[in-house]
């Protein structure tokens, strides 16, 4: 029996967020207002910053080291996706600072759970072994179930938490069943071992292996909200506290697609001919269902949830093709998706704290005149999500279409284009509500849903507007500026995406 050798420098990013989570829990016992309001979020931010710093230090292009006896891979793919998760985490903390939810649920528990979930995501994207994959998957999910129910006095938040728990558990069980079958067929839990077994010991059309792959993608599709496993998404996103929704919408998707990329485009790449057409069908369904579902929504959170489903369909197209170009496109698109969605959610949060319409579309009426510092980021985010040129969303879609066409899945390129055209219907409506007279805009009525009463944020007055919540406005503006900057100078992000793509060894 010999002890595993652990490369602590490579393991440091994961230890940093995990240690941060424990420290936050320990400090939460101090009741002092200063500790609760400043020290806890500060500690959480510092631990994420430390983790990000370690991730940047250990970043070495094209170099893959497996640590802890092959349980985790530290390469550009893991570190790149981890950095995106850290960015989402920092955004979520900034958006939660002034939120009543963190106070009601207990700030210590709230930030500790957030950090634990981030740790799970970084383990998931670095997983090089089926067991580590599942551990990361659960560590990601369980804190999120609790955080969805963090608004303990709001029935809809509790409903959302319970719904997510039940649907998520079904997803986990399905995934675990699939992983067990993949192990049964290939005789290895290691990704490298699985990839080596297929084609030598096991036939690529082995029924046990293919059943396992089907169950595994079903389980992961629940997390990534790929249709037809997306039904929980609008309800959970709407009920959960909005900062949690913002985190969940981007970070979970980043982690889920990170692990799908590694599992399907690395370990299972040699069976691509078998799973490719099946995933392509899912991709089509997701793009159509997500975009059509978003059209009728009057709640911004529900609309963004359906739009998230549609975006998951676009991202899946990059996985299906199984090429390096596809992997690069997935990373690039996730990075810009992160910025666009955080910007949009920041504006929703700023508005729902002061508007009598809550997160309804009407809360944005005439926002262009009232507070342009919120209206412009929302406009840029919506244009970006729709894929307009000069925003990062354009290059994201361009990359994906480029990857699908050169991977000879032209039909998926057509799906992306059709989906983007449908999506204009609901993205442009948001912009119209903000900048045009409300009488000209038809807003679908929400059947049987009373408008939500939200207490104004501290120190807010109609005149103060955006200035009363500087951190929320700052997040929105920063993300929107980055969306524009990447839309004009995409090269730095292209380079990072190329590094990430190059860490998957299986591509030709």
């Amino acid at each position, binding site marked *: *029996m010999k*002890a*595993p050798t652990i490369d602590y420098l490579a393991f440091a990013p994961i230890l940093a967020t995990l240690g941060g989570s*424990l420290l936050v*829990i*320990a400090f*939460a*016992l101090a009741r002092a207002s200063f500790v609760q309001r400043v020290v806890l979020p500060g500690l959480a931010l510092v631990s994420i910053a430390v983790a990000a710093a370690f991730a940047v230090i250990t970043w070495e292009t094209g170099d893959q080291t497996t640590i802890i006896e092959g349980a985790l891979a530290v390469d550009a793919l893991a570190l790149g996706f981890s950095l995106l998760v850290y960015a989402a985490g920092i955004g979520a903390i900034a958006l939660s600072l002034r939120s009543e939810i963190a106070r009601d649920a207990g700030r210590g528990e709230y930030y500790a759970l957030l950090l634990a979930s981030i740790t799970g995501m970084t383990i998931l994207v670095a997983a090089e072994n089926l067991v580590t994959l599942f551990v990361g998957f659960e560590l990601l999910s369980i804190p999120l179930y609790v955080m969805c129910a963090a608004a303990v006095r709001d029935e809809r938040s509790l409903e959302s938490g319970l719904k997510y728990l039940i649907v998520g558990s079904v997803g986990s069980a399905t995934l675990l069943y699939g992983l067990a079958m993949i192990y049964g067929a290939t005789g290895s839990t290691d990704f490298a071992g699985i990839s080596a077994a297929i084609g030598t010991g096991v036939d690529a*059309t082995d*029924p046990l292996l293919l*059943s396992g792959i089907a169950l595994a993608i079903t389980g992961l599709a629940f997390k990534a909200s790929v249709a037809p496993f997306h039904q929980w998404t609008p309800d959970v996103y709407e009920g959960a506290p909005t900062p949690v929704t913002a985190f969940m919408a981007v970070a979970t998707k980043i982690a889920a697609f990170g692990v799908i990329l590694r599992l399907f485009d690395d370990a299972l790449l040699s069976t691509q001919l078998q799973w490719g057409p099946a995933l392509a069908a899912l991709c089509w369904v997701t793009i159509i269902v997500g975009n059509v579902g978003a059209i009728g929504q009057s709640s911004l959170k529900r609309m963004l949830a359906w739009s998230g489903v549609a975006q998951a369909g676009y991202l899946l197209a990059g996985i299906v093709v199984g090429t390096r170009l596809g992997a690069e496109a997935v990373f690039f698109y996730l990075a810009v998706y992160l910025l666009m969605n955080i910007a949009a959610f920041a504006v929703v949060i700023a508005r729902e704290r002061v508007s009598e319409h809550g997160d309804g579309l009407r809360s944005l009426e005439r926002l262009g005149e009232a507070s342009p510092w919120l209206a412009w980021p929302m406009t840029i985010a919506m244009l970006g999500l729709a894929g307009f040129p000069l925003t990062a969303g354009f290059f994201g879609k361009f990359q994906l279409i480029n990857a699908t066409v050169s991977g000879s899945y032209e039909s998926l390129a057509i799906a992306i284009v059709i989906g983007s055209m449908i999506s204009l219907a609901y993205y442009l409506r948001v912009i119209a509500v903000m900048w045009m007279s409300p009488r000209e805009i038809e807003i679908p009525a929400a059947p049987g849903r009373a408008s939500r009463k939200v207490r104004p944020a501290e120190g807010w007055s109609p005149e103060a507007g955006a200035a009363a919540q500087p951190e929320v406005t700052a997040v929105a503006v920063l993300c929107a500026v980055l969306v524009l900057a990447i839309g004009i100078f995409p090269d730095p992000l292209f380079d990072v995406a190329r590094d990430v793509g190059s860490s998957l060894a299986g591509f030709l």
Partner: protein
Amino acid sequence: MLQAYLPVLVFVALGVAIASLFASVNRLLGPRRPNKVKQEPYECGLPSDVTKSFRFGLSFYMIAMLFILFDIEVVFLYPVAVQLEAFGVFALVETAVFVALLMLGFVFVWRRGALEWK
């Protein structure tokens, strides 16, 4: 080609058959001599006639959860203690880390009042 998936069909059929067998055989074969105590869902524990105003104390869940946590701690500690010589210092350190983490959680729930019987 699709014949290879026959085991899946057999598996599903067997699953349904066994589950419905266990669910129905008792009802079909068992003698029925009901009385009041037997009719209750559980024959021991709290009275099970739950009315609308009945509230089950949260403290029960807290204690039960903590019990399971420490139960599992012992399950982990025992094999390590028995085989410590074979595992060496690494196992000892790992166990110490595990217990320290558990202690942190224990101190947390204690200080937050989860052990006060309300």
